[in-house]
């Protein structure tokens, strides 16, 4: 039992590939969050320093519908957590039901975003305001789309017999990604819709 020569965690880690994958995925998400932080920093800088922030003819942004969207997206983080718990206790149908619910909520968010974009009176090229608005919401929307795509993949994989017997890295990573997308949205919502 000479642990000073041979720390047990190091020995195990060398062979723990799923653990490596989760660690690597978290490192990636931290790095990915810096892209959003850069965009947020740019947004704050532009908003504080641009003389005519709103393009002519634009009063501001409607808050009600995006707020409903926010509630749905943030709630879906809890729904996917329930799905993960069901998978953990080997209840596949419970997992599928709650994962499908998450997918529907994510899809509704994207639909709501598309409806909002349709109704706006400014475009991507309407000054820095239009540019940053569509860049931030669009880049985030791309992440929501990726999340829904990953969830759908995990849902379909659950029909492969024995797929989740050896580990649940894919589902855990998808869940973590979804929480990440939610947290980013909360910051984004405060910056763009609340701070007007």
């Amino acid at each position: 039992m000479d642990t000073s020569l041979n720390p047990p965690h190091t020995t195990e880690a060398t062979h723990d590939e799923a653990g490596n994958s989760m660690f690597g995925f978290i490192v990636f998400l931290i790095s990915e969050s810096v892209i959003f932080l850069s965009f947020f920093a740019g947004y704050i800088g532009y908003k504080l320093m641009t003389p005519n922030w709103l393009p002519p003819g634009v009063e501001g942004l409607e808050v009600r519908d995006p707020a409903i969207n926010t509630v749905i997206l943030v709630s879906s983080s809890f729904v996917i957590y329930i799905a993960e718990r069901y998978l953990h206790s080997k209840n596949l149908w419970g997992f599928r039901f709650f994962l499908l619910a998450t997918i529907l909520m994510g899809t509704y968010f994207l639909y709501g975003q598309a409806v909002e974009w349709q109704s706006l009176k400014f475009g991507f090229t309407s000054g820095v305001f239009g540019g940053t608005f569509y860049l931030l919401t669009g880049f985030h929307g791309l992440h929501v789309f990726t999340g829904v795509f990953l969830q759908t993949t995990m849902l379909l994989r659950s029909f492969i017999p024995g797929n989740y017997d050896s580990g649940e890295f894919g589902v855990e990573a998808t869940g973590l990604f979804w929480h990440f997308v939610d947290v980013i949205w909360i910051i984004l919502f405060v910056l763009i819709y609340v701070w007007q």
Partner: protein
Amino acid sequence: MTNIVIEPIHHEHPPTTWRTYFTFSTDHKVIGIQYLVTAFVFLMLGGIFAMIMRGELITPESDLVDRNVYNALFTMHGTIMLFGWTFPALAGLANYLVPLMIGARDMAFPRLNAAAFWMVPVVGILLMGSFLLPGGPAQAGWWSYPPVSLQNPSHELISGQSVWLVAVAISGVSSIMGAVNFVTTIIRMRAPGMTPFKTPVFVWAVFSAQIIQLFGLPALTAGAVMLLLDLTAGTAFFDPAKGGNPIFYQHFFWFYSHPAVYVIALPVFGIFSELLPVYARKPLFGYRIVAVSSLMISALSALVWVHHMFASGTPGWMRMFFMATTMCVAVPTGIKVFAWVATVWGGKLRLDTPMLFALSGVVMFVFAGITGIMLGAVPIDIHVNNTYFVVGHFHYILYGTVTMGIYAAIYHWFPKMTGRMYSEGLGKLHFVLAFIGTNLNFLPMHPLGLQGMLRRVSSYAPEYAFWNVIASLGGFLLGMSTLPFILNIVGSWVQGNKAPANPWRAIGLEWLVSSPPPVENFDEIPIVISEPYGYGKSEPLTSNLG
């Protein structure tokens, strides 16, 4: 807990031939050499561009190439040397060495590793292919400042500038994949017993550099995406004519691109720290503080970027703050330099080729560090802003320190990588030519800059001619110096003397396996019991190998 599960792996592997290097291999050693050779091809291309520029500058008039071609040449020279030579060459060395040095069989994610490498040739093909576009390649310099980079004279959607931005973005994705892989490998795959303060300094340096990639590179990606949208989709982010702010691009760009210098320099500092003890036969002086100083540099690097923007309408308080933080970088780098000096002090120096390159790299780094401190001071920076003084400073880093360091590493680990010894005579010839060439080429840039000669122009006032002729001759000599290197590497790889497992009597896990190492590196995972620099002491490095 003393019984570790040892799985001797004896798969039948096809022998490594030159064809292996053109496959999607997931062996970190193959990928490392793929990176190194690809990077060297880029060094040759970037070097040819540089020599054409030095040819143009040998006379004051603009007579050798068209001004647009000259703009394209310095843009491509800078881009290729950074994203094609230094980054991939050091990624190659880290790929080859890190798993061996920490006692792992491969990187954490071998397929991700291979995918990251194969993006590098794509970047090269895009950049070189942009010469064939009607408007030619990007001409706005390697930093691509708007509004110059937004001019797009050809009015095509696919312009030299947009191709450049796509290439840089792909290079960024490749670097992030590499960074995730290195950080995971170094944190989670070290051999039993390899605690942080039994880990080689090169591994510490690679870790510190990859941390910078993870927090810095996303900022450049954000700026590049916005610039690409301005260029192709008509957005207003950096276009002053549409109400945008070009200074914001400079912040995005330098928030990564200053720390990027440390991404390149830190592994080279690691190389110096590995080599000097071997050839001085003494333990690395201050091993722990040298290791930690790399992380200190990583942390400071996030707080210095505005020193590239002292002349960009930056407010006074910002200049003061970033001048002070820039001066602070001299502390951890100074720690390293003093540790290197103390390491070689009183040692039995063996002046083999790797040691010559390493020592000259340290000397030229001290010079570059002193001009760096000068440039970090606002009054001097404003005086020499955009002159050859700046160009001379960073070439002493990028050639004098980084490229010399990479050469040192290639010679030092060549026997390990190929199983053959290189020719010492050709190596020393290479060193002499490179050392004289570097100083002839880059030293004259300092007086030129102080006298006011601006960078990035193909014609200049006749009174600058003398130093320019010297610099050009140095540049051509530097180009020539690669010929004995190529001859040496190719010739020795084919028919050099067989190398033993440890030709330098060096201490390190990579020297405990055969040269070249077997496919899975270690039959038995080593159990590390002592610090890696025990020269002159008689304690073994591991309890079960060597």
